[in-house]
C-alpha cells in the first residue's frame, strides 16, 4: 500500500487537521466527536444543511462546507459512515433556529446512523428532515436490495439546496427541492483500478490489465460486471446508456452534465469523457446548460469516473448559479 499517510488509524484526523489549517477562513473543524462546520455558523434564521459519510470521498463532504453549500459535514472513518454522536453534535452546532436538513447517501450504515441522530434531535425539539440520495443506476432498486446507492449526484443536491437555503428557503421547501433534485439525478460509474482502504492494506479487488469494473459505487466495492477495456468514447456510451434508459430525461430537457473523477484519474481524461457524454446528450435532444468536470466524489486513489445527469428546473439552475464559497466549489464569491 503506497499512500501519503502516517498510519491507517490517523488518516482521517491528520487530514482533518490539514483541512482545518488550510481553510481556517472558511471552516471550523471540531474534534471528538468530529465534524466540520462553517466558520461563520450557525447562521441565524437559515435552514442548516448537514451531510456526512465515510471519509475517502474527498472533497465530499468536508470540502463542500461553506456559504452556499453545507453548514456541517460529519466525516466517518474511511468508507464508514459517521456515528450518531457526530451527527448530533454537528446538527446542534449549526442549527440556526429554522430547522436542519440531513442529506444522506443511501447506504444502510449512513441511513441508520443519521436516523438514530435524527430521532434524538427530534426529542430535543429541533425540526430535522432527512433526504436520502440514491442516484446510482448501477444498482437495481428493488425490494430485495438496500436500494440504489448515493454517489456523485450528492454534490449537486448539496450545492443546489445550499444555494436555496442561503437565499432563504424554508425547511419544507428545501426538503421538497432536495427530493426533487434526487428524483431528477442519475449516475453511473466505472473503474480502471481498485482502491486500497488504509486499514485493509490491499486493493479492494483485482483487475487485469485489459479489464474495467463497470457499475461501481464509491467504496471500492466490486461493480455490476467486469468488462473488457474500451476506448473512452465507448466508455462514455456505456455510462450514458443506463442513465438515459432509466427515466426521467426526455428531448428538450435542460440538464446539468457532471463528469466526476474517482480520485486517481487525471483531468485530461475527464475532459475526453465529457466531450463524448456531451455529444450523446445532444443526440438525445438534451440541452446541457450547466456542467461540472472534476474529481468531486472520489474513492480514495481509484482510477475511474462516473457520469451524472440532473434534469434542471429554473429554481435549481438559479440555486446552482448563486454564490458558493467552499474549499472545493467556489464561484461568485
Amino acid at each position, binding site marked *: 500500500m503506497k499512500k501519503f499517510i502516517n498510519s491507517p488509524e490517523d488518516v482521517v484526523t491528520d487530514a482533518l487537521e490539514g483541512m482545518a489549517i488550510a481553510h481556517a477562513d472558511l471552516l471550523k473543524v471540531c474534534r471528538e466527536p468530529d465534524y466540520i462546520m462553517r466558520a461563520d455558523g450557525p447562521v441565524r434564521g437559515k435552514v442548516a444543511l448537514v451531510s456526512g459519510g465515510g471519509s475517502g470521498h474527498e472533497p465530499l463532504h468536508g470540502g463542500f462546507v461553506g456559504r452556499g453549500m453545507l453548514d456541517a459535514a460529519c466525516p*466517518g*472513518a474511511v468508507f464508514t*459512515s459517521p*456515528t*450518531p454522536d457526530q451527527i448530533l453534535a454537528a446538527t446542534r452546532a449549526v442549527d440556526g433556529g429554522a430547522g436542519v436538513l440531513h442529506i444522506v447517501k443511501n447506504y444502510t*450504515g449512513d441511513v441508520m446512523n443519521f436516523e438514530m441522530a435524527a430521532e434524538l434531535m427530534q426529542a430535543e425539539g429541533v425540526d430535522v428532515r432527512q433526504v436520502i440520495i440514491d442516484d446510482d443506476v448501477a444498482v437495481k432498486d428493488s425490494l430485495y436490495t438496500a436500494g440504489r446507492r448515493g454517489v456523485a449526484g450528492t454534490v449537486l443536491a448539496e450545492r443546489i439546496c445550499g444555494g436555496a437555503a442561503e437565499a432563504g428557503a424554508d425547511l419544507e421547501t428545501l426538503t421538497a427541492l432536495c427530493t426533487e433534485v434526487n428524483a431528477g439525478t442519475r449516475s453511473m460509474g466505472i473503474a480502471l483500478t481498485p482502491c486500497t482502504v488504509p486499514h485493509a492494506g490491499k486493493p479492494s479487488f483485482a483487475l487485469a490489465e485489459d479489464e474495467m469494473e463497470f457499475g461501481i459505487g464509491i467504496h471500492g466495492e466490486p461493480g455490476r460486471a467486469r468488462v473488457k477495456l474500451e476506448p473512452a468514447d465507448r466508455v462514455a456510451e456505456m455510462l450514458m446508456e443506463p442513465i438515459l434508459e432509466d427515466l426521467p430525461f426526455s428531448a428538450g430537457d435542460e440538464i446539468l452534465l457532471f463528469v466526476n473523477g474517482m480520485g486517481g484519474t487525471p483531468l485530461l481524461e475527464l475532459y475526453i469523457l465529457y466531450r463524448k457524454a456531451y455529444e450523446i446528450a445532444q443526440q438525445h435532444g438534451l440541452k446541457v446548460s450547466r456542467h461540472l468536470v472534476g474529481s468531486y466524489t472520489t474513492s480514495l486513489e481509484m482510477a475511474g469516473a462516473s457520469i451524472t445527469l440532473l434534469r434542471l428546473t429554473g429554481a435549481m439552475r438559479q440555486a446552482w448559479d448563486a454564490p458558493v464559497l467552499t474549499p472545493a466549489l467556489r464561484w461568485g464569491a
Partner: protein
Amino acid sequence: MMLDVSVLAGWIERLTGSIEREQEHLTELDAAIGDGDHGANMARGFKAVREKIAQGKSETPADLFKLVAMTLISTVGGASGPLYGTFFLEASKAAGDARALDLASLHTVLAAGLAGVRMRGKAVPGDKTMVDALTPAVDALVGDGDLRKALEAAAVAAADGAEQTRPLVAHKGRASYLGERAIGHKDPGAASSVLLFASLAQEVAELEA
C-alpha cells in the same frame, strides 16, 4: 452458574480479543462483498469498549450492556455500529435490574437484542446478514438445560448460520448491490456474530472448568 457482571465483562474482554485476532479475516470477507472495513470497524469499537470498561465498574449486566452499546454506537459507524449498538442497548433494557443472568434470562435478554437488530435493520433470516448467525444462536438458548451446553450449541448454531450465508444472494447491506456476485462468500457481519457467541461459550466453559 449465573452470569454476573464480572463474568459478562470477561466475555466482552474475550470477544474484544477475538475480534482483534480476526480483524483481518473480517476485513477480507467484507472486501469480497462489501467495502473492506468490517474488521477495522469492529476492532475500533471494541478497543473503545475495552477502554470504557477499564475506566469504571458497571453495577449490573444492564449497566455493562448499556456501556457497550453506547460505545459501539459512538465509535463504530457503518452498518454494524448501529446494529451491534442496538443489540446491546435492547439487551440492556431487557436485563432490567437483574444482578446476574441464568440461561432463561440470558435468552430473553439476547432475544431482545436480536429483535432490536431486526427492527433497526429490517433484515430477516436469509437476507445474508448478521441476523443469519444471531437468530439460530439465540434460538439455541431456548429451554432450561445446562448453560454451558446451551452456549456451546449457540456458538455452533451461529457458525452454521454464518456458513449458510455463503450460497445466498444478499437482500440487505452493501452485499445486496452485487446481486449474484455475492454468492459463494460468507457475510462478514454473520462472521463477527459468530465471535460474539463463541467467546461467550468459551468464557463460561473456562470458568466452569
